[in-house]
Each structure stands twice: as C-alpha cells, then as structure tokens.
C-alpha cells in the first residue's frame, strides 16, 4: 500500500511538472503581454517594466527562475495587481469559491436527488416528464441567462436580496441557487438512472412483497444503491466546484478564484495564470489519488498499478 501511494505520488509530481511546463510556454506564446494596453506603453518604459519583472531574460532562464521560486512555495508577484502576490490572491479567493461551491452542492444534491427520485418512481408518467424537464433546466439554459433573471425577480422586483456582492449570509442565496440548479441536472439524471436499475432488482421486489410502503422501499432500500453513480460523480465534480465558476462569480460579483482562471489569461498575468493552473492540477490529482486509494482500500481485488 505504501509503495502504491508513493509511486502514485511521484507520478502526480511528474504530471504536475509537465502541466506547469506546458502552461508556462503556452501563455508566453499567446500574443500580447502583461503590459499590452489600448494605450501602448513606450518602448523605453516597456524595457523598464520588463527588466523589473525579469521578462528581459531569455525564456529558459525565466523558466528555471520560476521553477526555483516555485520549489520554495513562491508563486511570484501578480502583474495585474503589483502589490499582491499570487499566493495571497489564491489564499484569499479559494475559500470564497469553496464556500459557494459547498452551498451550491448542497442545493444541487437536495434538488437533484428529489427530482431524480420522483422521476424514477413515476417512470414515464407526467411526473417523470416534469421532474426530468426541471432537472434539465440547468444544462439547457445558460447560467448567464438564469442568473440575471433571478436577480431581476428576487433582488430588484421583490427586494429580498442584494443584486451583487458577498457580504452577509443572504448574499449566498442567489448564486448558490443558480449554481445549484446547474449542478442539479446531472445529479437528477444519475439518480433517476441509478434508482431505475435498483428498483428492478430482486431485493426490492422482496421488500415490496413483504408489504413495505413505497416510501420506505425507496428511502430505506433503493436509494442507498441508487445513489452510487451520484457518489462517483461527486469525486471529480468537487475539483470543479472548489475552483469556482466564472459566470456566477461575474454576475454576482463574488470575489472567488473562478474569475481569475479567465481574467488572468485575458490580463496576461503570467504568474497568476500559472498559479491557478497549478491550483487546479493539484486539486484534480489529489482527488484522483484519494479516489484510487479509497478504491484500493475498499476492494483489495483491484490490482494496484505501480
């Protein structure tokens, strides 16, 4: 077991190195730079700025320097926000995205499982159709349409919420709802599929034959097995949830990391691009490793690839 974990860890490290290297050279390949602006910076000033950030060095030298500081855990200064480091930006913003993600996930689970269960036990009736349709709102209407509509209705028209911001608990409701609806869609479909499969199995028929109520059959017997696909979906989904959503964070002006994934690339904030890439890659790899370990632990028959 120990050997398995060590070897997977080393593999992940190698993968991380490849990801960093590819990204480092990719962002430099994109036209424009951190100091490209509508108002062009004069060549003298550009030279000064590039010298300040070491961008005047040969690329391989910059790459080695970056790896050097990375080894010390330093992701470097941000270009767009000169008085903040990438470390600070990431540590500031990840908790916000994670909080939003956690609440959204809760909304998605409640909504998705409820709709999926309804659809499964009333398969091919109008209940199924209505529940399935609701379940699909999240993947059929872009969030940048749902979000503003909710804001107009609940924040502006009814005045229940703020239209943007991330201050009080009430500010969590609308973004978590929109993001939750988006995540509810796959969950409700997986629940429906999983339940349908379980409901056909013998032990359910046995339970029914014993005279258990339909409610009891579903909640006590079927859901446990029927939710297995949902559980395996949650593994990789968590990485996406922790790293935030660009659209939601923009519509509701949430100071999370999701916006930085896109904005840092638009700003050519090289260090912040790399910082977010590393964050994402590490999360994915850690979760994959966790899943592998869990599987190996639960099922000794799985051959450990090492």
């Amino acid at each position: 077991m120990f050997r398995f974990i060590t070897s997977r860890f080393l593999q992940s490290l190698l993968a991380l190195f490849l990801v960093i290297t590819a990204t480092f050279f990719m962002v430099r390949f994109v036209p424009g730079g951190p100091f490209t602006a509508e108002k062009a910076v004069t060549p003298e000033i550009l030279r000064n700025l590039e010298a300040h950030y070491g961008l005047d060095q040969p690329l391989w030298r910059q790459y080695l320097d970056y790896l050097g500081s990375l080894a010390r855990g330093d992701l470097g200064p941000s270009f767009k926000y000169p008085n903040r480091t990438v470390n600070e930006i990431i540590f500031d913003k990840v908790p916000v995205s994670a909080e939003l993600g956690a609440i959204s996930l809760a909304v998605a689970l409640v909504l998705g499982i409820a709709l999926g269960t309804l659809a499964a036990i009333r398969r091919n009736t109008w209940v199924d159709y209505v529940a399935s349709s609701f379940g699909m709102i999240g993947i059929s209407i872009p969030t940048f349409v749902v979000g503003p509509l909710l804001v107009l209705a609940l924040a502006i028209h009814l005045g229940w919420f703020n239209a943007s911001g991330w201050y009080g608990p009430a500010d969590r409701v609308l973004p978590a709802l929109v993001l939750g609806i988006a995540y509810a869609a796959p969950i409700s479909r997986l629940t429906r599929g999983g339940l349908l499969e379980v409901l056909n199995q013998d032990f359910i028929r046995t339970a029914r034959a014993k005279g258990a109520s339909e409610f009891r059959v579903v909640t006590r017997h079927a859901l446990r097995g029927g939710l297995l696909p949902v559980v395996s979906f949650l593994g990789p989904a968590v990485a996406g949830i922790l790293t935030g959503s660009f659209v939601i964070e923009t519509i509701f002006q949430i100071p999370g990391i999701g916006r930085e994934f896109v904005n840092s690339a638009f700003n050519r904030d090289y260090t912040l691009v790399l910082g977010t890439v590393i964050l994402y890659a590490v999360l994915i790899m850690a979760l994959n490793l966790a899943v592998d370990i869990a599987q190996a632990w639960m099922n000794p028959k799985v051959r450990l690839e090492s």
Partner: protein
Amino acid sequence: MLPTRPPAVRPSDRPGSRLRGLLRLSTRRKTAALPLLAALSGFLALPSCAKRETAVDVGLRTATLEIGNTGEPGELDPHIINSAPDYQVVPALFEGLLNFEPATLAPTPGVAERWTISPDGLTYTFHLRPNAKWSNGDACTAADFLYSFRRALSPALGSQYTLLFHPVRGAADYASGKLTDFTAVGFAAPDPLTLVLTLAHPTPYLLGMIAGNPVWFPVHRATIERHGTIDQRGTGWTRAGHLVGNGAFLLTDWRPNQVIVAEKSPHYWDAARVRLQTLRFHAIDSLDAEERSFRAGQLHVAHLPPAKATALLAAKSPLLQITPGLNSAFINVNTTRPALHDARIRRALALALDLPRIAASVNSARMLPADGIIPPGMAGYTRAARLASDPATARTLLAAAGFPGGAGFPKLELSTATGGAHELAQAIQHSWRTELGVQIAIVNRESRTHWDQMHAKNYDLALAGWNADYPDASTFLDLWKSGGGWNFSQWNDARYDALLALAATALDPAARLAHLQAGEARLLEEMPVIPLSFDRFLRLVHPSVRGWPANSTDRPDYRPIWLAAP
C-alpha cells in the same frame, strides 16, 4: 404594419413604478422557472422581509457614498496606476499641487495655494500652503514633491506617464536613464514651501498637465522607504493600514474584488469643507451587475450598459447623468496597406459613414458623432474644419482612385477588440458595403491580441481611441507626428509636422490656435484616421447625491459632495 420601438419606460411614472415597468417586460421568460424558485425560496426558509433598509438608505444616515467602480483597481500608487478604476479612487486619497474647475478644467489651488509664471514661460514657482498635511499629521512640503517627482521619473519604477513631465528641463533624459543626476533636472525647492519648475520650452498647457494627473501627486517618503526603495514596484505600501496620503480621504480597508473604503481624513487642510464621512468603492467589473446593484439600492453612483442608457435617455430619466468626455474614438487606417495608402480612398471610407445615424442606432447615449478628431470642450481650441457625411463624394473619390462601385477593391479587414463596439463595427461595415460596394471583413479579437496586432502595425483598419492626457488639442494632434510612438497609421506628412512644430513654439495663443486648427484640417483632408465619435461618460446617480462635480476627465472630486433625502 411595423410597430415602432416600444417605449421601454414611461417618463411620467415615479422611479419605483418605472423600474417595475422595466421589469414587467421580461417576466414572460421567467414563467417556467418561477414556481420552482418560489418553492426553493420557501424551502430555504428565507426571511422575506419586504422593506429592507438598503445600503443607499444607510448611506444617507451615515454620510457614506456607495460608488460603483467598473472593476478592481490594479494599484493605488499614483505613479503606477494605469486603469480606469484606479483613477476613481486615487484622487480621493492624494492631492497634487493643483486641482481643477470641473466645468472648465481651469487649474485651481491644491497643495499649492498660489503660483507665478515667468514672462518667458520657462519658470513656474509654486507656493505651498503651510497647513498641508499627510494623513499621519506630517507636514506636506516641497521636499516631498521633489522626492515624488524623482520617484515617478526613476526608470526602474516603470511609471507609464513620465511623458507628462517631459516639458521640464532634463526630465525626459532622467526618465530614460540618460541623465542620472536628479539635481540637474529642472525641479528645485529653495525652501519647504516653495517649488520651482524650470522648463525646456514654453508649454502653455503645463498647468493642465499638473492638475489632472496623479503622476504629479506627491507620495509620503517615510512610508515608501519603510516598505522598500524609491524605485521599487509593488512593495505593499499602498495597502490599507500602510498607505499615507495627503488627500481629503484616508484608505481604511481594501478587500480585493469587493470594496475599497476611505474615511474622511482629519488632517486634510480643507477638512471643514468635506461633507462625506465615508467613500466605498465597489469593484464591480460587469456593467450589467453594476446597473442591477444600483437598482437594488446598493449604490448611489453606478455605470450602466449601453442598452439601459439608451432607454433612460429616451425616457429623459433624471437618474442618468451624461458628461461629455475629453476623448476621441476613431478608426486607425494602416496607410501602408494596398488601397489605404491613397488619401482619396481613406476620405471615401470616412465620407461614406453617416455617423449621426449610426450613433443613434448603436449607442445614442454614449456616442457623440464626431465631426473632427479633437473633442469639443478643449480649453482654448475651436475647430475650423469639419467632417460631414457625403456618400456621393465618397463614391466619386473611390471611382477616381480606380475602384468605381467598389469593383476590384482589395480584401481588407476591420479589426476590433472584444467588448461593446461590435455593433458599431457592423454598422460601419454595412455602410461601406451599401454606400461604396466595398466588402470589408470584421475581425474581432480578444482585447490584448487586438491591441498587440495594432501596435505591431499588423492590421488594415482598426477601431481605436484616445483619452486626453491633458486638456489641450496637442494631446491628440501629436499622435500622428511622423514616426511618433502612437502613430499606428504610419502616416508621415511633412506639412503636418511643420504645423505642429510651429504650434509648439508659438508664444501667442492666437497664432498657436491657428496652427493647431490647420493641423486638424490637414488630418481631416488626409484621413490617416477616420473620426467616429466623442464618447460621453454615463452614470446613474441616485437623487440623494448632491453636488456631484461631473467633469470631462471623469476624475471625480469627492470633497463637495453630500447626501440629502430626495
């Protein structure tokens, strides 16, 4: 039967019902989602108090102004800032030698209470007020200004606006590193309250340069040096708790991508005149979100997207504040490209555009259709030559240049950056096709890619613009000097250069004006750029905000503002 554009808002309504009227238009789309939403909100057991006290209401009580600020400031260091949100905050925290009159942009006393100019226009003497203080109580002296100018000009700092010091003797050389002895630069402080500037050549607009631009603002030496060296970027001295300024407000909190809070500074020399207690700048980087936050009662002042502005303008809404801006939007024409090297063709492309009609359809609130390259409201400048749409002449010119009816015209591209201007580009493209028979493809690129291509002169036609660095016509005309760094048209014209040289050395204002006018006329004749519009600044301003000193540089002065129940 074509129904005309429906009135989106009814002017007679009170603001509340108008907003509801705006809303009603969009309710049809919501019907599918609403029952679900209602169920969900019930499920989440939300407190559904109908009348909450909004931030705008609280502000009225606590003299707090909630300001929508188009995005997150990159920096608050006056010598480094370069993006629009920065310029909304920094003037609250720092004060330069001069301020300006909002209506005319004429210089008014700042830290300098009076100043004199020598008859030859080469020596400026500023007398600082003795009660000017930093926010920690230190006196703000001429030595602080000397230190600050040295810092701003230090090559390693990489300030992007050193150009604004260039009239001062030796400043350009110091900024480029050719001169390393700062005492040789034309700044001197004979005593703590006197600052003397010696210029290389007379510069009639120098006071305008000083008044409007944070690069001329002072910084607090002890604070800079506590966090780093004089020419070090990003030392963190601008963070809340560190920053020491000399402005009317004092930075107390900076929550990235959320809010910047500034409180009234007790040490400010004119604190008695400052009526607001707190400024809160919200870093909202989406115009739509900013406008919605305003309507939800979170902001006193907000920016808004074009569609909303157009509707409010049509309804003559009192909430919409429109301020002419000192800027010019135009199409850069790469004069080295086929066909475009011919001035007749450039003129034809310009004359084919019916700018008033295009502006009215695309963005009537923001776009003031251009009739020249220099915006109105430029101190001491009036336009002599005017550009007016004339498709018939355009067709004649195009035919004379060898492309009658657009036949055989080379395949050219109109480059644009992602963002608001895509409708404008399409209207222009359509005009060229229908008026001249010229097919031009739109190439819409991600912003920095677009700028990069334009700066590399790798384009045919490109949507571009320029904001005045100081209120004088030369800030625009200098762009197209032969070989100039911003001359992306690559247009070289000896006559134009000669006119600008004459204007630069003319001491008599009338003679100078005549040369500048001739320069603009030459530009409109040769058309290395096609004028499009002078863009106005649009804001939503809550009725409780009083005394907002709107001005054409969009650098707000928060001192005279107060809040009172509407």
